[in-house]
């Protein structure tokens, strides 16, 4: 128990600190690196909760793909981050006010939180038979059966996202010289070479 509590405070503490650094670091590359650190720590929190599958997804997807993409964008795009930041401090008081109101409300909700009398009963409805198997195994059991609809529609959403990315970025540019192997190979000497008789002394 002590170990768990220690691990929780360690992960949560580093998570909060690195999240703070993400928004305050001057160098955007440092921000992204702190973001990766915070992802790792939240993955640690998920492991503590017993959700090891989500923890692994967190590391693979967020750290492996999203954060690396961020890093690419930050390094490739020619954006002056100091200019972007100019004037951002003006919004701090308003942000603090809204943030503290939200925090107050959340504390108010969660400290008086009560479950409905039938919550346990409701929770038991979909599950059952998941004792003693791991997260990934349990998800595998339901994702193609009970939740097949959500799974398929998620596929459609990703499909639309892909179409959207192509629609918004793909341009057919004219004047680009590409190698067209078909054309090269089907070219015959008779199509392009012209033999002309030239009488001496007249020129072409």
């Amino acid at each position, binding site marked *: 128990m002590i170990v768990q509590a220690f691990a929780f405070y360690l992960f949560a503490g580093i998570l909060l600190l690195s999240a703070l650094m993400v928004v305050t670091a001057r160098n955007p590359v440092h921000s992204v690196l702190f973001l990766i650190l915070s992802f790792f720590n939240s993955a640690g929190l998920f492991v503590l909760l017993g959700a090891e599958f989500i923890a692994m997804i967190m590391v693979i997807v967020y750290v492996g793909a999203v954060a690396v993409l961020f890093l690419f964008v930050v390094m490739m795009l020619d954006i002056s981050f100091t200019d972007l930041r100019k004037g951002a401090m003006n919004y701090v008081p308003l942000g603090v006010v809204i943030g503290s109101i939200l925090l107050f409300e959340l504390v*108010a909700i969660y400290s008086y939180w*009560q479950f409905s009398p039938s919550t346990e009963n409701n929770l038991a409805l979909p599950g059952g038979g998941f004792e003693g198997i791991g997260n990934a195994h349990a998800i595998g059991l339901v994702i193609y059966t009970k939740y097949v609809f959500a799974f398929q529609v998620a596929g459609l959403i990703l499909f639309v996202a892909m179409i959207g990315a192509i*629609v918004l970025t793909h341009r057919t540019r004219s004047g680009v010289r590409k190698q067209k192997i078909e054309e090269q190979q089907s070219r015959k000497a008779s199509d392009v070479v012209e033999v002309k008789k030239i009488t001496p002394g007249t020129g072409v």
Partner: protein
Amino acid sequence: MMETLNIILLMPEIFIAVMAMVFLIFGVFQGNRSTDALCRAAVFSFVIAAYIILQTNWDTQFALNNMLVVDSFSSIIKLIIIIGVIASLGLSVKYLHQERISRFEYPVLIMFAGVGMMLMVSANNMLALYMGLELQSLSLYVLAAFNRNSLKSGEAAAKYFILGALSSGMLLFGMSLIYGFVGSLDFMTIQNTLSSLEAIPPGLTVGMVFILAALVFKISAAPFHMWTPDVYQGAPTGITAFFAIAPKVAALALIIRLLYVPFVSIADQWMQVLYFVSIMSLLFGAFVGIAQSNIKRLFAYSSIGNMGYALIGLIAGTEAGVSSVIVFMLIYMIMTAGSFAVILCMRRDGIAVENISDLSGLSKNQPILAYIMAALMFSMSGIPPFAGFFGKLFVFNAAVDSGHYLLAIIGVLASVVAAFYYLRIIKIMFFDKPADLFDKEIDVEKRIVLFLSLFFIIGFIFRPLFVLSIAQNAASSLF
């Protein structure tokens, strides 16, 4: 676990999704010259989907492990959505060419948005609701940015996307609170759990308010309407027409199902929220609309105001209220389709003009167009022989019957104020000095939409009870 897949009930959605994928493949091989053919094929697929819906049994049935429900409410709303999607596809066929944004992804994205809307309407589970909503919204974000050469289009899409993502976040947060309290995402289970409560805990109310806020954003009702004018103005006009016609109906139907199925027993909680939202929308739509000079922005404020009327019917909380909302939305959708057909005709020398003053003297230059627009505007402002009057009448009637006099009075007053800007359009068309001619050529699709909407708003008075009885049939499946 496999007991209730019942996948056959999803035939219309599956059909459209598969056709969209086929069209995409076809478009990839044929290139952008196939756009027209694909738009027509998309219209045809929606017609087939409507036929499938008409052929299926409308008794309440559940599909895919209670994720979705098919009943007369969802079927009728799906038919209305299909009419709206077909109308907006028809309106934009020519427009895409005129603006040189004729790309084959357009019909494909519209079809996916259509699938999303139809799934939203059928949702019987918070998860299904979210998935349908996101499928629809994501397609709409892309469509808003469809004209890449226009800075405004990009700006509109960015605003829409960021605010839409924020509202999705609120939706998910609200859902998590509801799930935390009830322990289930299923609408029926939530309904049963909530109906046996003695006291309503604050967490539940907060969750419900978050969900409502996110959905009210989608129908652009007042405190969450900021995106509407900018997106309407910035998006290409053909796509604005689509935004104004179809997604509103779907989102409103979603709200109706959510309020009357899972949250029915905490009605006195959500009524307060909607009361406020409705009055705000009525006032914003009426007063801010007066100051507009751009006709697309004007219609944005008009839609904000009209959502206020629709919510009045919901606050009534009765079966008559819900059916009045359905009739109101159908009429509003058809009037909007007609009005946007006229707006799309506003072109000079091949360039679209968008100011209200550009309409001046239209009655001299193109009398038929001017008279149709006049009829549409009279109908929008709710002047008797036209359909728009009946839409408002049914809604106010439902509100008065359930004792919400104040709301009905504010609604009537707001509609008087809003009548100013509708009638001003008529005044500009008929009594102002003629401006330069518009391009005369109007394509067949626009003519069809114009005349069908005119036919509907004039013909409604002869058969109002027929439409009302269909809406009552839809509403009855929720009670």
